[in-house]
């Protein structure tokens, strides 16, 4: 039987009874993925270190620019009095212990002795102590606000900010170090916990720069929402949507219409956000319907069209409903009789507003996480992988895709409702193509398909737009004054926003093509693509 001989030479002869090493190799990828999940650990540790560094250097920077008397943990160390100083010493000593532990780990890794990178009870205790110390100090700051808590120097505007930043940084580092074993195995939960803890503390960290909390933080939270929503469409279902700003606009216009003077309806805000989301998701389904047969590039072009149509309709004041290029007036968030605007000064208002936004982000994250793991989430991935096979396996591809569009749009509707209330005037210029591109780049930057990843991407981009670029302008102006380099004065870095996006995206594509925190499947896809490329290259070279 000659054919039997030739066929047994086929390499697929692994069959059901594969030897253990082959099975291990087949299953191997998942082990790799587990090992790789230190990404979250790095994010937490690096942001902790960044906060400490910023906290220590912020007062000097303020002194340099505003001629104010800065006060920092550094000063507290030098003044030897006050409870705050003592607390900082405690935390600082704890940090020294952590650094010592880290050095021990490096020693273990270098000499292959001892047991580094293991979860242990002592480290968990250290981490909990760090968090407890921060909590204690935050309470003390509240109680002794008028007292010379941090020594004899009178607190200046940035005092609390610097202390808060340093303490948060310490807490993050302690958490990252003490719980690293747990973090690297539960990346998602750890990231979520840290993100919301830091997010909740954010208005306190920046309590004296109300502008930054008021605009920057809320902007970041809104971009997180947008990125989460777009991630459903692009990341989960694999449908490239270039017109996502359209749904954002619809949410914002709905808010303006229902809260502002245009129609005279002054509905409470907590009703409006849900109506905004509902209207946006309805439009999501309506606009999604014509694209159902399209894929890839064609789908992207059609969604791009929708992204242009909506602002255009708004500019032309269609049915007299949008107020034309001047936009519609929206009233700030009002909660019926409980009006946040009356709670006090503007910073307090924005603080509650931000916390509310944060709660909404948390709810959306939980909901999307649940969806991702559900029957529907699997159906989305199946459609992304192979639509025909998905249809033949019993998935209703039409309704599943429409649900992706509708759910993605509803999240964007939430974001739009908050954005409208935050802007005060909802105008078409806020929803141009650039917004869609920005949101898409946050998703790509963070890691397509991974909830934690896209949140990181959105925070980074918002941070870049609202903090880094404007301050770079100030820094270079200061630098030009100090060094006498006049060319540097008056360079407005905010105008180079898209150049920076471009550079960041190029960098990410070259260094971490699946994003900062890639989803597992994407990572495997990339590995597979690289392998097959290498194989074909090898084949080519073999032939040559």
């Amino acid at each position, binding site marked *: 039987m000659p054919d*039997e001989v030739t*066929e*047994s030479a*086929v390499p*697929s*002869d*692994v*069959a*059901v009874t*594969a030897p253990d090493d082959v*099975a291990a190799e*087949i*299953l*191997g*990828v*998942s082990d790799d993925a587990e090992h790789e999940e230190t990404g979250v650990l790095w994010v937490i540790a690096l942001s902790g270190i960044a906060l400490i560094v910023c906290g220590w250097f912020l007062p000097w920077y303020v002194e340099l620019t505003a001629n104010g008397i800065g006060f920092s943990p550094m000063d507290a160390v030098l003044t030897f009095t006050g409870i705050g100083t003592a607390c900082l010493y405690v935390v600082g000593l704890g940090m020294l212990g952590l650094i010592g532990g880290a050095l021990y780990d490096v020693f273990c890794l270098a000499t292959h002795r001892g047991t580094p990178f293991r979860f242990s009870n002592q480290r968990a205790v250290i981490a909990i102590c760090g968090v407890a110390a921060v909590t204690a100090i935050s309470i003390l700051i509240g109680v002794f606000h008028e007292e010379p808590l941090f020594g004899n120097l009178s607190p200046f505007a940035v005092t609390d900010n610097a202390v808060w930043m340093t303490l948060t940084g310490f807490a993050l580092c302690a958490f990252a170090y003490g719980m690293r074993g747990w973090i690297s195995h539960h990346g998602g939960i750890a990231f979520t916990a840290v993100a919301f803890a830091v997010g909740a503390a954010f208005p306190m960290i920046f309590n004296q720069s109300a502008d930054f909390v008021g605009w920057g933080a809320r902007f970041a939270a809104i971009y997180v929402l947008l990125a989460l929503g777009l991630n459903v469409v692009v990341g989960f279902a694999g449908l490239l949507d270039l017109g996502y700003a359209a749904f954002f606009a619809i949410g914002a216009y709905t808010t303006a219409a229902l809260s502002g003077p245009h129609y005279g309806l002054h509905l409470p805000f907590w009703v409006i956000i849900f109506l905004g989301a509902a209207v946006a998701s309805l439009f999501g389904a309506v606009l999604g319907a014509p694209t159902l047969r399209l894929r890839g590039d064609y789908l992207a072009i059609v969604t791009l069209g929708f992204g242009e149509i909506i602002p255009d309709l708004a500019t032309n004041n269609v049915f007299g409903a949008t107020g034309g290029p001047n936009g519609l007036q929206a009233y700030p968030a009002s909660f019926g009789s409980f009006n946040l605007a009356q709670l006090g000064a503007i910073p307090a208002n924005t603080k509650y507003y931000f916390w509310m936004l944060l709660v909404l982000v948390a709810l959306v994250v939980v*909901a999307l996480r*649940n*969806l991702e*793991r*559900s*029957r*529907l*989430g*699997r*159906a989305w*991935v*199946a459609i992304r*992988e*192979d639509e*025909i*096979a*998905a*249809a*033949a*396996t*019993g*998935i*209703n*591809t*039409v309704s599943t895709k429409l*649900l992706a569009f509708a*759910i993605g749009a509803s999240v964007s509707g939430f974001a739009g409702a908050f954005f409208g209330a935050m802007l005060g005037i909802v105008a078409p210029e806020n929803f141009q193509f650039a917004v869609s591109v920005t949101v898409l780049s946050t998703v790509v930057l963070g890691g397509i398909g991974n909830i934690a990843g896209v949140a990181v991407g959105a925070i980074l981009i918002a941070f870049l737009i609202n903090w880094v670029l404007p301050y770079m302008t100030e820094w270079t102006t200061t630098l030009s004054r100090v060094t006498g380099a006049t060319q540097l004065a008056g360079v407005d870095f905010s105008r180079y926003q898209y150049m920076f996006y471009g550079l960041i995206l190029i960098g990410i594509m070259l260094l971490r093509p699946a994003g900062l925190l890639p989803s597992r*499947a994407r990572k*495997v*896809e990339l590995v*597979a693509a690289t392998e097959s490329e290498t194989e074909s290259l090898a084949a080519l070279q073999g032939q040559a």
Partner: protein
Amino acid sequence: MSALLEIDGITKVFGGLRAVSNVSFEVEEGAIVSMIGPNGAGKTTAFNCITGLYPLSDGTIRFKGKKITGMPPHRITRLGITRTFQNIRLFSFMTAVDNVMVGEHSRMHAKVWDAVFRTPSERREERDVEQRALATLRRLGIERYADAYARNLPYGLQRRLEIARALASGPSLLLLDEPAAGLNQREKRELMELIAELRSGGLTIFLIEHDMRVVMGISDRIVVLDHGEKIAEGAPQAVRANPRVIEAYLGSGASEMQVS
């Protein structure tokens, strides 16, 4: 035995090409029926018509006495017809168990809101479905690869996984498109055992296959297509001796050579 699937004069035209032309036959409940024919005879097109991936140009298809012509693929799957593909179409970057769980999709009931709030019934269903998926993998002998990505499985096991995914929706008719293609002799034998076992479990099987040893070994009845038309139908021995079949495979004049 009553007819589970009734194909009545189906025609599929692509532009000027009649890929399937006025083909009629029946698949009886509990039978193993094979469809053979030279390359390009329209076998896979017929499969695609039955599973609703292609709209029919003419003719009707009935399943359990119910007309399924014009139904979308997922509704046909829900009624109880599932299939595998000639060139394996697994969800490569999902794990094996996830692939099978996608197969369970049409049997699940959780709605969007159940998933968003993770209601107790949704959790219970997810748990049950995972257990069922693992049981299906066990039945096909690939349970140990449950957490491996589908693309990393060896070819033969990918074929098995595709059958597992098709079984997950609880079909009464299983369509297999060249299930033995690319398998070695041992895997082919295992496949034949598997098909026989599935049939004894009450499943009706309709397959396209080129490997004559497989076809002749397991089929109750064979349908032969050539150039989109049905040229023969009957028991394996009868089809094997049919001059038109021999002609379709080997060219005219071959039937006389066969006899001599």
